[in-house]
């Protein structure tokens, strides 16, 4: 067995172990990859009822304006992200990315306007670097604090709203990407209607001391089952969502990564606050002229999964390299293999067949619109 004794723990570790989880190292944490039900059942349960995920390894960061004016924090943060933060209303959340000077992506994150401060959720593997990046970029005008006393869980799936409503909080008025404070079993939590599965659902930030208790109570509901990282990955892949470090990273721009939608008008050419973020020249240039490659959905023709790292060719002999798979596996809801990756600009049209190199063979893979399953966000 792999030695995992040096890894960090989330506040829910004992609960995972009591549920029979198989624990693996992930981003410096010991995390549940699956429970006894297994990845397949966990995935399907999330799509048909409600799945509960421990995402406490992610970083929760508060950005508080020294002036007391939220606009000052928004404008300061806009220097690091190509996103309209100023236009984000109170109680609303938005997807964002940190860019570097070359237009690459340092991390992806969520930004919420909590009235007198901004609340950020960043990836576990990047959180220390993100925190330094934020302090360096914002400390003139803002106090930046990494919260180390809160857990984060996600409740995802078509029954998530009803489960939360039954157990404590009426969240039916919340829309996708709303953020609100609510008491769950007398514990003050921050709830956002968002997630990483393509399903309607919620992410819930809980004070560490109450995290296991609140989570256990949610798990007592017959519709709720615990879901590990394995199904989290297959769910997000079916939903066409990027995994930072696989599908987007410092070498990919938002245009190449096909996440232009994350950049609102205000930050694009001709917008009220055009540019002004790291890598703006390159990114806005690609907006105007297109990029030489693009992230696309990929549907393998047969039953064989095509995994991240597989090279993509224009031909069946491996002569003309046209791209690379960045995430790939099996989609339990799709009931077949699915993947995403980068192809050069001449192979991005839906329906284009390219060939993935798998164990010395060249398997046909068709460029396909994302997502693979219909997203069911409550907009």
């Amino acid at each position, binding site marked *: 067995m792999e030695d995992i004794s040096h890894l960090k723990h989330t506040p829910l570790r004992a609960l995972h172990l009591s549920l029979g989880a198989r624990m693996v190292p992930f981003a410096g944490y010991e995390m549940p990859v699956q429970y006894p039900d297994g990845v397949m059942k966990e995935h399907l349960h999330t799509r048909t009822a409600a799945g509960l995920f421990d995402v406490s390894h992610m970083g929760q960061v508060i950005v508080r304006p020294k002036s007391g004016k939220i606009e000052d924090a928004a404008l300061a943060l806009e220097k690091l992200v190509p996103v309209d933060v100023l236009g984000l209303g109170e109680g609303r959340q938005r997807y964002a990315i940190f860019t570097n000077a070359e237009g690459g992506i340092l991390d992806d994150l969520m930004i919420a306007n909590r009235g007198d401060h901004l609340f950020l959720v960043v990836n576990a593997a990047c959180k220390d670097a993100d925190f330094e990046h934020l302090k360096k970029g914002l400390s003139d005008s803002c106090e930046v604090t990494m919260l180390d006393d809160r857990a984060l869980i996600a409740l995802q799936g078509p029954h998530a709203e009803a489960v939360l409503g039954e157990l404590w909080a009426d969240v039916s008025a919340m829309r996708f990407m709303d953020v609100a404070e609510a008491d769950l079993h007398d514990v003050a939590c921050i709830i956002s209607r968002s997630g990483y599965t393509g399903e309607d659902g919620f992410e819930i930030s809980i004070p560490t001391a109450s995290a296991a208790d609140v989570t256990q109570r949610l798990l007592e509901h017959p519709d709720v089952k615990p879901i590990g990282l394995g199904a989290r990955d297959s769910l997000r892949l079916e939903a066409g969502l990027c995994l930072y470090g696989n599908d987007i990273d410092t070498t990919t721009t938002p245009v190449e990564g096909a996440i232009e939608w994350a950049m609102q008008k205000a930050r694009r050419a001709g917008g009220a606050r055009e540019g002004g973020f790291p890598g703006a020249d390159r990114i806005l240039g690609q907006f105007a002229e297109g990029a030489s490659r693009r992230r696309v959905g990929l549907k393998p023709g047969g039953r064989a999964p095509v995994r991240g790292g597989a090279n993509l060719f224009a031909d069946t002999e491996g002569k003309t390299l046209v791209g690379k798979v960045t995430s790939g596996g*099996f989609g339990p809801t799709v009931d077949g293999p699915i993947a995403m990756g980068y192809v050069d600009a001449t192979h991005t049209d839906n329906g284009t067949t390219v060939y993935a190199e798998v*164990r010395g063979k060249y398997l046909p893979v068709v460029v396909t619109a994302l997502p693979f399953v219909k997203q069911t966000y409550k907009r």
Partner: protein
Amino acid sequence: MLKFTDEHEWLKVEAGVATVGITEHAAGQLGDLVFVELPETGSTFAKGDTAATVESVKAASDVYCPLDGEIVEVNQAIVDDPSLVNSDPQGAAWFFKLKLADPNAADALLDEAAYKELVA
């Protein structure tokens, strides 16, 4: 004669032909299988060569040839329904039949008690 390898394959040897599969322990560790690729009948392998590939939702894993030999039959049933490997790994979900180059070579492999100890 039932034998095991430390790579979690089982072999049932009859008249110099070994029926080969993966153990219950291995199937449990791999999780829900969604794809199986088997070798071609007539192909030959040395001990330790990759003879088959199994894929779960999450990852691909190699299945090694436990001894030198020639593939004389493969089990199409697990290609058609990979979940059979999870439900009956040491029965209906055998992978291939291997005509052993040396019929006595299996003697040196682990017996059931030794394998159970290995995975305990």
